[in-house]
């Protein structure tokens, strides 16, 4: 049973959006702590520190939500279509990084991101 394509596109957009927000929360929390990681021990300590903040758990909740929708999408469509559409996450992440994290995305990085998306579309449909 094939679902309507717009329904699938909407669901994948929702997955990517929740994942983008979750990544934003994670990255901004890491930026706020500003640790220099040089060992596994230090990495684990940072993870532990992050786990104590409530907003990280909101991020996990969003990731869980994203995963549930993704599982649902995978049970309904073929991998090629799902992965092609999922490449919209790269564009979302780039915009979100500029707007919310004030990252500087110059022409080279934008071009790189578009090449990645174009490449994924080619791999997915081939």
């Amino acid at each position, binding site marked *: *049973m094939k679902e309507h394509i717009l329904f699938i596109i909407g669901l994948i957009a929702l997955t990517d959006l929740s994942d983008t927000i979750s*990544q*934003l929360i*994670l*990255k901004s929390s*890491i930026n706020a702590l*500003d*640790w*220099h*990681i040089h060992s596994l021990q230090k*990495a*684990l300590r*940072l*993870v532990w520190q*992050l786990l104590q903040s409530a907003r990280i758990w909101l991020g996990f909740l969003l990731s869980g939500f994203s*995963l*549930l929708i*993704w*599982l*649902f999408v*995978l*049970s*309904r469509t073929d*991998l090629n279509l799902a992965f092609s559409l999922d490449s919209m*996450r*790269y564009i979302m*992440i*780039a915009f*979100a*990084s*500029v707007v919310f*994290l004030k*990252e500087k*995305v*110059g022409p*080279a*990085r934008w*071009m*790189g*991101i*578009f*090449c*990645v*998306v*174009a*490449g*994924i*579309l*080619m*791999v*997915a*449909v*081939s």
Partner: protein
Amino acid sequence: MTAAKKRLTLKILLFLIFTDLVETFAQFCFKKSASGAGLLRVDDLQGALFFIQSVIPSPFLWLGFICVLVIFITWVTILSKVDLSVAVPVASFSYITVPLVSAIFLHERISGLRWSGIGFILLGVILVSASTQGQKERV
């Protein structure tokens, strides 16, 4: 406060590739658990709950979750060193490694279009990495 470089170094790139490999395995596990649950009708809350209920006993789901934990630790480390708009596109490396691994070990044929796609992704990753080389140290 220590200064962390935002530049994408070879070490971080290797970390990203490792994360990708674990991520690929996790995707495989989740796909296995989802297809094991069969084609379920999820039209309402009850259907959704039934879907979750049938996915939870699958060992693949839990193996996937362990991978997610490993990925979280490496991902936090990566994000502490580079921009989000760098880490995410460079992590698309798995779209290259998976077809190459299938070609080498499973003797799958790679079509011309797929080779072009792999080329584009590689070019994209190179461009994104190059865009970080001029970045100053974060203080």
